[in-house]
């Protein structure tokens, strides 16, 4: 059944006028992990038993991960209420009092703090609509952008995109209109558009939440893109580690087919376009566009030199546009509301909003969406509620293994592509990790470098060998075996790899190390000169002591010590001889009573 514009609008009106009472349960991966399934099952059962006229629905993630599971109750005649940290006891109470008794339960009300500085454009539907219902999406202005876009010529679409100033949300920040324009201007029998959903950056899950919470928005963005560049086929490349996202996007594709929003003669405009899902298989390098293309072609995910860029020679050597999930999710609203509307938010060079996964040592961790140009200070303190346990903030890491560490003195930096780049970091896909005084910067650099060593594909020598050598130096420093000379050598390798590596992964791999070297040089020197780790993270630089008061004299540490540095017996207790101790930390890890301290 191919629907036309009128029929879509008819569905929209029908959904909007639907005023039944409903209860929505946030059921993205994070919600389910926090116990949302149990809540959902209970509600289905309870509604059936009590025969009330209430619909129980699933929805995506509203972003407040720190207070999951989240339930929204909308009873006719009452204001909608959102409850947080809902466990089974809570939901019983809520069902009893609110759903049946029409009285709000005040104990579990969500605290709205931190939402005032956020602007939800990409996440507008996440946690609001049922991601498994196309009607729900249409009801919240879904596919209106496509309707408008298909009425205009491809050049006008590019023009609108140019006015909007949208730039790639995957990391680099390349203007989207330029990418599309390159591909559009090449005449070829076949062209492709690819959605890059290979979110491999540890500590980031924006794309997962969008795919799980609003899959149709990504689909709609791809259809518009396909029309603009003249592609008839698109691929969604999604991590296999995100099964729920894959399931929902597949369902969305089926639904769009049923409505004729994919397939032949879309919206009766004579445009044919289809989509296919391809799975990633756990290789970080496949986030790089040429490697991703190789992976879709069924090969090893090796990157290749550019140019030629994918917009000239991409998938199966055909012109190909690759956009990130968030970029594509931005597209529908641009065509529904106009390029100027989109550009009304943001800073001069970076328009619109950006979704971040705010995590680490922050009170309110979760998914946030803010206008570009907002400062880090506002994000961490006003939205995130400050540092966990009121400790002192040390730095914020953006861009994951490709990004850098921004020290606390630059918290007033506006969040846009250029400002972050000037500080030696990148916007990246949106991971934002808050670190406090207990985090050691050498340790962090080592963590990211190990990641890059594991993920280096091995094709080019600078990355394959360089990352390994950098890791060796970092290990040496963290063990207190390095000299100042080693720090210099480390820096040299960083610069060399940055210049010589073949692809983005290698070129950016030194960033976390370089930025910590730049801003926390003192800390590196302490490791080298004083053999000290001020954060107490580098095990080899600490001394271990048994606290007699907490010690239960069990003897576990005594038995585990590989060099017999612990002496004593079960009656008198134990003591560590720091002259014999090799600082392996085994006793510390073994003790069940936290009776061993290290400083």
């Amino acid at each position, binding site marked *: 059944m191919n629907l036309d514009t009128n029929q879509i609008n008819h569905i929209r009106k029908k959904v909007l006028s639907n005023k039944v009472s409903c209860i929505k349960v946030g059921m993205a*991966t*994070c919600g*389910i*992990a*926090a116990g949302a399934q149990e809540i959902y099952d209970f509600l289905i059962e309870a509604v059936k038993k009590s025969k009330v006229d209430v619909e129980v629905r699933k929805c995506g993630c509203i972003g407040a*991960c*720190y207070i*999951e599971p989240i339930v929204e109750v909308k009873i006719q005649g009452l204001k909608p209420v959102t409850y947080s940290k809902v466990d089974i006891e809570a939901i019983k109470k809520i069902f009893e009092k609110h759903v049946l008794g029409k009285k709000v339960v005040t104990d579990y009300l969500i605290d709205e703090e931190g939402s005032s500085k956020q602007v939800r454009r990409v996440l507008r539907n996440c946690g609001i609509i049922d991601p498994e219902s196309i009607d729900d999406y249409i009801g919240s202005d879904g596919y209106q952008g496509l309707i408008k876009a298909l009425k205009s010529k491809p050049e006008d679409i590019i023009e609108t995109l140019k006015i909007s100033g949208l730039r790639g949300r995957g990391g680099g920040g390349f203007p989207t209109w330029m990418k599309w324009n390159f591909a559009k201007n090449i005449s070829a029998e076949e062209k492709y558009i690819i959605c890059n959903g290979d*979110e*491999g*950056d*540890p*500590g*980031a*899950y924006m794309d*997962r939440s969008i795919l799980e919470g609003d899959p149709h928005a990504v689909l709609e963005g791809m259809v518009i893109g396909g029309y603009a560049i003249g592609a008839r086929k698109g691929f969604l490349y999604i991590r*296999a*580690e*995100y*099964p729920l996202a894959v399931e929902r996007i597949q369902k969305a594709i089926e639904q769009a087919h049923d409505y004729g929003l994919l397939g032949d003669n879309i919206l009766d405009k004579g445009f044919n376009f289809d989509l296919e899902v*391809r*799975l*990633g*298989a*756990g*290789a*970080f390098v496949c986030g790089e566009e040429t490697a991703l293309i190789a*992976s*879709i*072609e*069924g*090969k*090893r*995910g090796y990157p290749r030199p550019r140019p030629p860029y994918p917009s000239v020679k991409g998938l*199966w050597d055909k012109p190909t546009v690759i956009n990130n999930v968030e970029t594509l999710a931005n597209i529908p609203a641009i065509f529904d509301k106009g390029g100027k509307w989109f550009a009304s938010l943001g800073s001069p060079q970076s328009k619109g909003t950006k979704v971040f*996964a705010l*995590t*680490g*040592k922050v009170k309110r*961790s*979760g998914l946030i969406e803010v206008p570009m140009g907002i400062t880090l200070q506002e994000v961490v303190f006003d939205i995130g509620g400050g540092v966990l346990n009121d400790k002192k903030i040390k730095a914020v*890491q953006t861009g*994951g293994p490709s990004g850098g560490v921004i020290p606390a003195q630059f918290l007033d930096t506006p969040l846009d592509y250029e400002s972050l780049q000037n500080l030696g970091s990148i916007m990246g896909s949106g*991971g934002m*990790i808050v*670190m406090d005084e207990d*985090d050691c910067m050498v340790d962090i650099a080592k*963590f*990211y470098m190990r*990641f890059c060593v594991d993920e280096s*594909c091995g094709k080019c020598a600078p990355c394959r060998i360089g990352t390994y050598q950098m890791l060796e130096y970092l290990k040496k420093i963290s063990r207190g075996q390095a000299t100042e000379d080693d720090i210099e050598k480390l820096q040299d390798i960083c610069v060399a790899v940055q210049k010589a590596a073949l692809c983005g992964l290698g070129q950016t791999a030194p960033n976390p190390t370089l930025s910590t070297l730049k801003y926390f040089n003192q800390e590196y020197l302490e490791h080298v000169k004083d053999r000290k780790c001020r954060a107490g993270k580098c095990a080899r630089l600490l001394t271990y002591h048994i606290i007699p008061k907490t010690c239960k004299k069990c003897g576990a540490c005594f038995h585990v010590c590989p060099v017999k540095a612990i002496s004593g017996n079960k009656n008198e207790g134990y003591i560590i001889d720091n002259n014999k101790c090799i600082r392996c930390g085994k006793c510390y*890890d*073994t003790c*069940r009573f936290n009776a061993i301290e290290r400083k």
Partner: protein
Amino acid sequence: MKNENKVNTEVKIKNLIEKWRGIEGNLIMILHTIQNEYGYIPRQVSFELQKLLDIPLARIYEVITFYNYFKLDKPGKYIISLCMGTACYLKGAPRILNELKKVLDVEESETTADGIFHLEVVRCLGCCGLAPVLMINGKVFGKLKPEDIKALIEDYRKR
């Protein structure tokens, strides 16, 4: 695998990959299908694929060994995936890993002697708000403390 006779395997694999036959770039999707079915990619199946798809065995193995997701050995009944993403790392995942190694008496990427548990360290499960997290056969457990591990494992061992 051993008990299944050869003809059966051939037919089974033929059916499994039918959907992807003749589609360009299908190898990775076919391997996903196989792994979904068997939990890993048995050598015997790779031999069959070589014939069915008419490609060299080396082509199949170069892809399997490149991607972390594909396994060549049969994993345990329960796969424990401990997240080592940045947020989990900062919030104590290394201590959880130590505890898991101790309780299970295995190293990373190893299966317990009784074949029940397989311990692996993964990149990011995308549940950073609940860090540190681990996943056992698709079910996610969040906000873990080292002292929770023993009970959790015992609970699964009893099943």
